[in-house]
């Protein structure tokens, strides 16, 4: 959240509520509850949280695949919600590209690879004439580290990692400024995952593309991202510089997530009592541990974000604030046999 330059993307109070059920049993699920997110030029921001925490909904709102129910967002300083009410403009669609989880479902099996690269180039007018089109396609393949003969192949002839690279090449065809990568490696064979992460990193560094990297894997977020934002029940609970946040996690939910990452180098063994306490703190907070030290006063009405450190950046949501009752279900239920935590 540095103000030195205009961020590529800036959301304020972004909300999304889904209506579920039929006419007689209508209810609402609040998937996003007011999200403020800034992504700077060339920056990789990792959005972490468990499934159902609203990570993908946020990405889909930014990609304009979902209409947000409230809030604003600016792209390169322009109010996107105002300039294009229902449908995003073609210009915006090419500036923001999405990479999906499943490279097996996102490439139509009846077309050759060349087709997938040609289409965006033609539609967005990035290459004119046959010779230039061929050169553009080869350039794209080279960028993602695939040989030229791929153009003639069909998707089923490619491995998962190769397909995901094609999906990335397709996104690059229209010179995007922001890429939204929704768990791009979770369906790939483990041995090629790191290669795809390395590719995304070098694209951001070399071409100044910004990226929102959505994952539930904190280890890969630590490997890839400049900044990490932790999401729980549709809201941000903590964020900041990736290394700082993981070295000094403040919010109980972040600590819970970190303690869940398998780490062969872990020195202290897993402590179920401590984890039960963390869960309790997340779901039924009792007070704010930063009330004394933080500059911003706590409030019962709004979720205050306390700044723990300016450089490197690190902030955390006020500990008084509990997750909303309308938020979707979470896997964090309190243990039923709660004897240990009560006495602890």
């Amino acid at each position, binding site marked *: 959240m540095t103000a030195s330059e205009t961020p590529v993307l800036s959301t304020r109070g972004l909300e999304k509520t889904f209506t579920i059920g039929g006419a007689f049993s209508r209810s609402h699920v609040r998937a996003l509850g007011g999200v403020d997110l800034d992504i700077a030029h060339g920056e990789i921001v990792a959005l972490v949280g468990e499934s159902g925490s609203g990570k993908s909904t946020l990405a889909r709102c930014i990609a304009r695949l979902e209409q947000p129910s409230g809030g604003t967002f600016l792209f390169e300083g322009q109010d996107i919600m105002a300039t294009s009410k229902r449908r995003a403009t073609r210009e915006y669609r090419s500036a923001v590209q999405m990479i999906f989880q499943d490279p097996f479902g996102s490439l139509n099996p009846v077309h050759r690879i060349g087709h997938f690269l040609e289409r965006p180039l033609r539609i967005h007018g990035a290459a004119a004439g046959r010779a230039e089109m061929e050169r553009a396609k080869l350039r794209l393949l080279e960028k993602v580290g695939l040989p030229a003969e791929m153009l003639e192949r069909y998707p089923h002839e490619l491995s998962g*990692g190769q397909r995901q690279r094609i999906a990335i090449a397709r996104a690059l065809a229209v010179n995007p400024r922001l890429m939204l990568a929704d768990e791009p490696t979770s369906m790939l064979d483990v*041995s090629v995952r790191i290669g795809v992460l390395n590719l995304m990193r070098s694209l951001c560094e070399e071409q100044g593309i910004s990226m929102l990297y959505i994952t539930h894997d904190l*280890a890969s977020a630590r490997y890839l991202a400049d900044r990490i934002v932790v999401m729980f029940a549709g809201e941000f609970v903590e964020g900041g510089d990736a*290394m700082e946040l993981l070295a000094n996690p403040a919010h109980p939910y972040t600590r819970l997530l970190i303690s869940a990452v398998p*780490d062969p180098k872990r020195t202290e063994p897993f402590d179920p009592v401590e984890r039960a306490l963390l869960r309790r703190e997340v779901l039924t907070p009792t007070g704010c541990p930063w009330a004394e030290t933080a500059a911003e006063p706590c409030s019962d009405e709004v979720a205050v974000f306390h700044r723990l450190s300016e450089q490197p950046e690190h902030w955390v949501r006020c500990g008084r604030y509990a997750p909303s009752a309308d938020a979707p279900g979470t896997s964090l239920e309190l243990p039923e046999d709660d004897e240990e935590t009560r006495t602890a």
Partner: protein
Amino acid sequence: MTAPLLEVQDLSVEYVTEARTVRAVDRVSFSIAEREVFGLAGESGCGKSTIANAVLRLLRDPALISGGSIRFAGTDVLALSTDELREFRWRQVAMVFQSAMNSLNPVMTIGDQIVDIFTTHERATKKAAFARAGDLLDLVGIPRDRLRSYPHQLSGGMRQRVVIAMATALRPPLLIMDEPTTALDVVVQQEIMAQIKDLQRELGFAILFITHDMSLMVELSDRMAVMYAGRFVETAPAGEIFDSPRHPYTQALMNAFPPMSGPRTRLKGLGEGVRFRDIPDLAPVTPTHWVAPSDDDSLITEALS
């Protein structure tokens, strides 16, 4: 050293169809001692689940055990008759499947499903079986009154606990766990793993643990093997593989899970399209660390990453 609990020798499994024959498991040998946790790592399609199914004799056409032997506590598993198999499965070796939380019957209460195990395998009376079912839930930290719940009334993590408890019901000396936590959320996953560790310490069963997540495996296993395209490429004590993986494929697997501490360094993956072919037999590097010789260290390239 005492005789191993499970001993697999030169096991080969083929999927035979009219068009072609695929060798899913190719001359694989390993053994698991009593109370030992043996990890089997590898990617989808490498044959690790096929091994698990072969040990329990669950393979059906077109899969065929084409060679080798499987011995469990001295008995030849491949020679068991149908009746003997009934006795062998669950009492000697029980299995927790990949999508275990969906393997519960949705129209029966948890209690009835556990009671079934005791009435079928031990001819216990319904009342005694019910009491033991309650004990079983105690063991995995689920309140007894949940016996009357239906599976959909439990969370994914709780269902997984129930399934694990059911696998230990007859106190089998060996449990096969095929990706027991992959379908679960990260937070729950670690708790299930801790539960498995506790149970293992308490009841003292051996585990054949199958996963593609190396860090999870290193945390739990005593010894582990890495599998690629039906062959073992490396086997060693888990800590040793973690500290000094030898085979390029093992190194690539390790790198897929970046560390959570220390400085950030660039890791290398397996180059796109790299395939290992004709993997030779394992050869010892140290008495406990065996690796399939691979002369080509350049297989892990940064050029393509």
